[in-house]
């Protein structure tokens, strides 16, 4: 259960940051959907709804997405879907229902670095930077690895338009449940980016697997070898949703499926 003493709608991000920093117990509200599931005693709830961070701007070389943009807006955005082969749509589609997707925000999702996140795994195979209001720009990969140095507000992200192929794979007990394991892959020219999430730790790039696949043909033998490298380099764990061994075995299957999809598309 959460408790809130005071509810505040700042109109600028400066005002939001100032209020956030006034007291340790003050907290930001994005969609507020995930906060509901936990417990927190808040002084002032700083709701970002009126700060003007709900937008997707398509530029010539990149997309900029404001922190308060909801999952449904991202999922249904034509430009993003066209450019990234429906990567985000595929990653978001199975998250509960449309109503929840109309509520949850990308800023909260990225800042919180949830291990179970489907969106973060997909985002990690793109060239993305995050803008923290106070700390400035940082690569998504570095942010996921290290988190913020100090309390901050995630203001927006910038996804470079790269010419590649993008795939997302997940395994769920049932549609709309959390992923047991998920994997995203992108291929630009001969370079791959592969991210594994819901390990159950947060999404991580599988660098050795990416290096192995670079400039290699996608043959049955190479897929087997890549799967073996992936299952050794990525750290898997056990939770109520699946065991370490199961995740390890299934990650190989997801990689194979993603590689096969890319290979079929190319040929």
């Amino acid at each position, binding site marked *: 259960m959460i408790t*809130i003493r*005071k509810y505040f709608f700042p109109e600028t991000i400066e005002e939001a940051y100032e209020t956030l920093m006034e007291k340790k117990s003050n907290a930001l509200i994005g969609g507020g959907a995930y906060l*509901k599931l936990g417990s927190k005693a808040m002084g002032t709830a700083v709701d970002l709804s009126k700060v003007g961070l709900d937008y997707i701007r398509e530029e010539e070389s990149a997309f900029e997405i404001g922190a308060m943009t909801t999952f449904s807006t991202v999922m249904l955005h034509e430009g993003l879907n066209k450019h990234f082969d429906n990567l985000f749509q595929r990653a978001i589609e199975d998250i*509960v*229902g449309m*109503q*929840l997707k*109309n*509520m949850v925000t990308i800023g909260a999702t990225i800042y919180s670095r949830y291990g179970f996140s489907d969106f973060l795994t997909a985002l990690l195979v793109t060239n993305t930077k995050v803008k923290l209001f106070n700390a400035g720009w940082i690569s998504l990969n570095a942010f996921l690895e290290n988190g913020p140095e100090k309390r901050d507000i995630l203001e927006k992200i910038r996804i470079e338009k790269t010419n590649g192929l993008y795939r997302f794979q997940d395994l769920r007990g049932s549609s709309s449940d959390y992923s047991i394991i998920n994997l995203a892959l992108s291929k630009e020219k001969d370079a791959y980016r592969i991210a594994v999430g819901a390990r159950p730790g947060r999404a991580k790039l599988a660098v050795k697997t990416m290096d192995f696949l670079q400039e290699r043909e996608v043959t049955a033998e190479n897929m087997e070898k890549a799967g073996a490298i992936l299952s050794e380099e990525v750290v898997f764990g056990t939770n109520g949703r699946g065991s370490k061994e199961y995740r390890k075995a299934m990650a190989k299957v997801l990689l194979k499926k993603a590689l096969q999809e890319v290979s079929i598309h190319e040929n």
Partner: protein
Amino acid sequence: MKINLTINGKEKEIEIAPDDYLSEVLRREGLLGVKKGCDTESCGLCTVHLDDVAVLSCGTLAAKAHGKAITTIEGVEKKAEKIRYELGKRGVDQCGYCAPGTIMSILYLEKVVKDPTEEDINRYLKGNFCRCSGYVGQLEAIKSYLEGQKHEVCE
């Protein structure tokens, strides 16, 4: 704290606690068609429209509704009756508890997607659980309702 909002077309000023959720507030206002279900944003029973967007009222802080328009099942009686007729005809409105949330999602779909396909219906109704009847009959009922609406518009 006080919030000003419009509920089913009527302007209101309501006293809420800063940590109240919208479903509780609406039920306190007598809108009992906003059902209590999982209370963890998973089942869709508490679906309402907030400025024409379908949301789960059990997970929406009531303060977020300040300055906005809320529509609940009580505000869409005529359309709801038509949908219930289609559901009832197929025996898929049994205990009826999920119907208000389901109907609010169908109306949202109708509003935002032009000529929805079966894929669209599944996408927009995925967040509404029914434990009586399964979903095949529901799908048929929704298709029939939407088809009927097209003719109504044409006439």
